[in-house]
């Protein structure tokens, strides 16, 4: 786990990691949230809607932003304040995602950073983009 202090950070700094979406992740997410929507749980239904298989929950994809902040940048001192996301493209079981955050702003008075975040799939297509405001505590 990283443990950047505010003074260690600079605009343009970035961190990234990779994660592969599994069926177990979708099933666990359903168990935690109670979202039983068939698009995420019924392969035949998802195919009937024009997808190659079950569609991963957008919020499951977004949940990796928690890891990005809490483990990578800034890491241990992270306190997520705000998250804005857009789900650009669907994510499917087996997709290998690259989760990346780049610091675009540092506010010294309140020890807060703004991350531009992007999640791309194995083809390089953006599946999520957004912004995070994170306090360094």
């Amino acid at each position, binding site marked *: 786990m990283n443990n950047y202090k505010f003074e260690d950070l600079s605009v343009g700094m970035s961190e990234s990691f990779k994660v592969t979406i599994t069926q177990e992740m979708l099933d666990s997410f359903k168990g935690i949230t109670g979202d039983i929507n068939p698009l995420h749980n019924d392969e035949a239904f998802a195919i009937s809607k024009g997808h190659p298989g079950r569609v991963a929950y957008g919020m499951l994809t977004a949940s990796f932003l928690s890891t990005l902040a809490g483990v990578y940048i800034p890491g241990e001192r992270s306190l997520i304040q705000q998250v804005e996301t857009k789900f650009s493209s669907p994510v499917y079981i087996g997709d290998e995602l690259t989760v990346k955050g780049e610091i675009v702003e540092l*506010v010294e*008075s*309140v020890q*807060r950073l703004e991350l531009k975040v992007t999640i791309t799939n194995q083809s390089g297509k953006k599946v999520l983009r957004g912004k995070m405001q994170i306090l360094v505590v």
Partner: protein
Amino acid sequence: MTREEVLEILTEIFQDVFDDDEIELTDATTADDIEDWDSLEQINLVVACEKKFNVKFDMKEIQALKNVGEMVDTILSKVQ
């Protein structure tokens, strides 16, 4: 910049941060008067003020602020 001008700009910042065009500030306005004014929104207010007025605060100044009037005074001391 006059005190009235700072208060007017500050009112616009508050309306934007709290997404509420009904907010009218006076020197006596405190966090008790605006329902969503909590510690996280306080940070958003500080950041918005720094950008709008092109000033920098330090943590002690922020923690010492008791009401909007003191925010105006602090901003005025930095822009003049």
